[in-house]
């Protein structure tokens, strides 16, 4: 599903690389947790997967798409196949819950009928039924993150990238979000999660990849994390 082969990313010539010859393979339907201190290279790795950045060297293949041969004009299509969730939610502030989720389908050119039948199901999946007409500022942090997850999964992507999705949430809401990600993973989506929360990592008992100074320093099938 995700293949990185000796991927290096250097932002400035002469500076030490943000990622240094990183190789990894993630199977379809896997739930992988990426851990590491700030500056370890997690964000760079995500930016490479979403094609915000190009690698300095190495090969990246996601869902059968080789990034070396990917044209710029096809990048939006690639991104429609990858769901992304951010620590700061990144919702459209002037749009309702329904409109935020529907936006992901509208950009793909889906009809109004398709949107009207799909969006309520996803809103129900993330437990926000009844809040469709509310604006982001009327929701709690946990609810906002649920909207962001609904928007990320509404197109049924094969891969979901969640970058510190619990970073701004209290422990109770954090666990709600993690359970939701597990549920999505059970439906067949590959989940790649980054977190600093050791408790979450240790309780989930999933594959844990540790990044340190741009290099993979650990890759455990059932991993743990110590801050």
């Amino acid at each position, binding site marked *: 599903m995700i293949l990185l082969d000796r991927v290096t990313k250097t932002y400035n010539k002469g500076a030490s690389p943000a990622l240094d010859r990183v190789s990894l393979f993630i199977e379809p339907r896997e739930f992988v947790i990426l851990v590491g201190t700030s500056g370890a290279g997690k964000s760079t790795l995500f930016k490479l997967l979403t094609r915000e950045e190009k690698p300095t060297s190495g090969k990246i293949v996601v869902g059968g798409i080789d990034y070396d041969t990917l044209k*710029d004009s096809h990048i939006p*299509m690639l*991104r429609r196949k990858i769901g992304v969730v951010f620590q700061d939610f990144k919702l459209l502030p002037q749009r309702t819950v329904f409109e935020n989720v529907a*936006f*992901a389908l509208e*950009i793909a050119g889906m*009809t109004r009928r398709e949107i009207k039948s799909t969006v309520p199901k996803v809103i129900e999946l993330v437990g926000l039924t009844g809040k469709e007409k509310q604006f982001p500022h009327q929701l709690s942090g946990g609810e906002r993150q649920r909207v962001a997850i609904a928007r990320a999964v509404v197109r049924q992507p094969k891969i979901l990238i969640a970058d510190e999705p619990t970073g701004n949430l209290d422990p109770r809401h954090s666990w709600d979000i993690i359970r939701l990600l597990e549920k999505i993973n059970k439906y067949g989506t590959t989940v790649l999660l980054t977190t600093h929360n050791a408790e979450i990592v240790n309780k989930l008992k999933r594959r844990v990849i540790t990044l340190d100074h741009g290099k993979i320093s650990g890759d455990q099938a059932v991993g743990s994390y110590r801050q």
Partner: protein
Amino acid sequence: MSAKKKISSKTFAAQKRNRRKLLTFWRVIRYGTDSFIRNSWLSVAATAVMTITLLIIFSAFVTQNILTDTISGLQDKVDMSIYLKTDTTKKVGADLVTELKKLSSVRTARYISADDSRAEFAQSNKGDKSTIAALTVATNKNPAALRVVVENINDTSQLQKFVSTDPLLKDNINPDYKPSFAGERRNTIESIGRAVSFAQKIGLVAGLIFVVISSLIIFNTIRMAIFNRKEEIQMMKLIGADQSFIRGPFLIEAIIYGFIAAFIATGAGLWALYASSKTLLSYQISTQPTIDFVTFYGIFVLLGMIAIGAVIGIISSLLATRRYLKL
């Protein structure tokens, strides 16, 4: 059969693509109008700045027009005289006028007989009883004259050549009075000519400077509005929106700013023009031709303002979104 089926499926796919494009187009318009309504404070601010911009452009246009008309009126008043002998006949005067009108540099020419000249003199001195009394007894020594208005008071070369070469004029020209462009009055006329050219140039340059400054202001306002929403643009990119889908609503918003601002600016500009026309007229400033023009072509003036507003908005939005749309 299979070929026919293949063509049908291709047509179907093309129809589906077109439907999607149309759907996306309507969505872009809806997103633009929604953003305009929901970001109400930003919309009011941007529309206000756009209104000021268009009002400045309108004012620059109107001022330039009024200036040109006033200057043109002044030029018409600056006529040049070629003095003829007192006994020049009306027929000779008429022939000379016909010849003068053939010159490309001459706008109008008319003949003033010696009698008309004396009548003019009497009219301008009607308060002076002793002069009027003297006129009634004295023989008319006033010269007849040809009054000429030229297209460009800075260029009288053609007229001067005419005076020195035309045989009929040579026979009738008054040797005691030099033509006004050749004697002491020449400097005065040339000074007026230079002042007119200078005023026209200054008017044009000032108008252009105002237009450029106001365009930069609205560009900056739209840029700031888009800068405020750069995270939104970033998010749209990351969930797979293509450039036209991201950029489209911003362009629609800018067009709405331009549309509303054009109505307000045109209305306010016309009102100000009508309201100030009497005052300006009392200072000998000619507003009537401009008022006639904007009244007769009102709809085109409005459409022009809408077009200018929309173009400034679109260019500003395109430039401002460009830096955030790099993949």
